[in-house]
């Protein structure tokens, strides 16, 4: 996977996750159902990433997984 594409992918995750997908309303919904703030962020981000991954061709999967673990580490907390 070329570097530039990996970078783009990262940018997409970051953009989507910070703007639309993980809105305050979604976090509130999760916490109101019993999840802590941290659990809620983790669950929603993981779900979002899965959603994006499913739309990628197979050959990207491994690289994408690596990126995601980095991304998730940086985002939670």
């Amino acid at each position, binding site marked *: 996977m070329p570097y530039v594409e990996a970078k783009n992918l990262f940018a997409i995750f970051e953009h989507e996750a910070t703007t639309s997908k993980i809105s*305050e309303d*979604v976090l509130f*919904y999760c916490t109101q*159902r019993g999840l802590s703030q941290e659990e809620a962020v983790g669950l*929603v981000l993981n*779900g979002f990433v899965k959603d994006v991954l499913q739309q990628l061709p197979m050959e990207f999967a491994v690289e994408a997984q690596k990126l995601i673990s980095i991304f998730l580490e940086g985002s939670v907390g």
Partner: protein
Amino acid sequence: MSWLEVKDLKVRVEDREILHGLTLTVNPGEVHAIMGPNGSGKSTLSHVIAGKPGYEVTDGQILFRGEDLLEMEPDERAAKGVFPAFQYPVEIPGVATMNFLRTALNAQRKARGESEFSKPDFLKKVREVAKSLNIPQDMLKRGVNAGFSGGEKKRNEILQMALFEPAVCILDEMDSGLDIDALRIAADGVNALRSPHRAMIVITHYQRLLNYIVPNVVHVMSKGRVVKSGDQQLALELETAGYAQFEDVA
């Protein structure tokens, strides 16, 4: 002791006062209906009870079984048994409903010091509850409310209510968007949850729902206050006379 006691509650949203001193007491075993015109503050009340950010409580209090609810985080309220079924549930794509439900239920149980459900045990439980509400299994595999129809979202809220077995339930327009059969099934589900250890608030615009879920008390809300309370007869009167008679009171 009351399960829910809202006392002279004043709430602001973005510097505008929406609730102007609302008082409401719900005892265990009771079902209260709240009716009122659009914008009278019904959903605002539900959100404040749930702990949604963005609402500033400037006066009054909310007691849940004698405890100060406003001091608690939303997840603490959930674990204690406060459950609002939202008028507009959000979508969480990528998070399978089944996974979400198990994570949420186990988080609540953990907070209460109860044992967590194993995957198989949970599966058994959720399937039972879904079946009783006529919710198809494949809905549970999809993302939380992702691409659900309006009615499916409402059913998913009722499913969660049945699963979490909360002490106080606030159903915000659960009847809007439900077809006739789905309404009957959802109402049966709600009625099955009526218990001496549970209190419910049912927010609706339509008297019809109250034929299915017969309330102990009916309140009329207007402009951020409860302006009249009565029995089911009050809902019937509203159906014919509308809300004009309450304009002056509020």
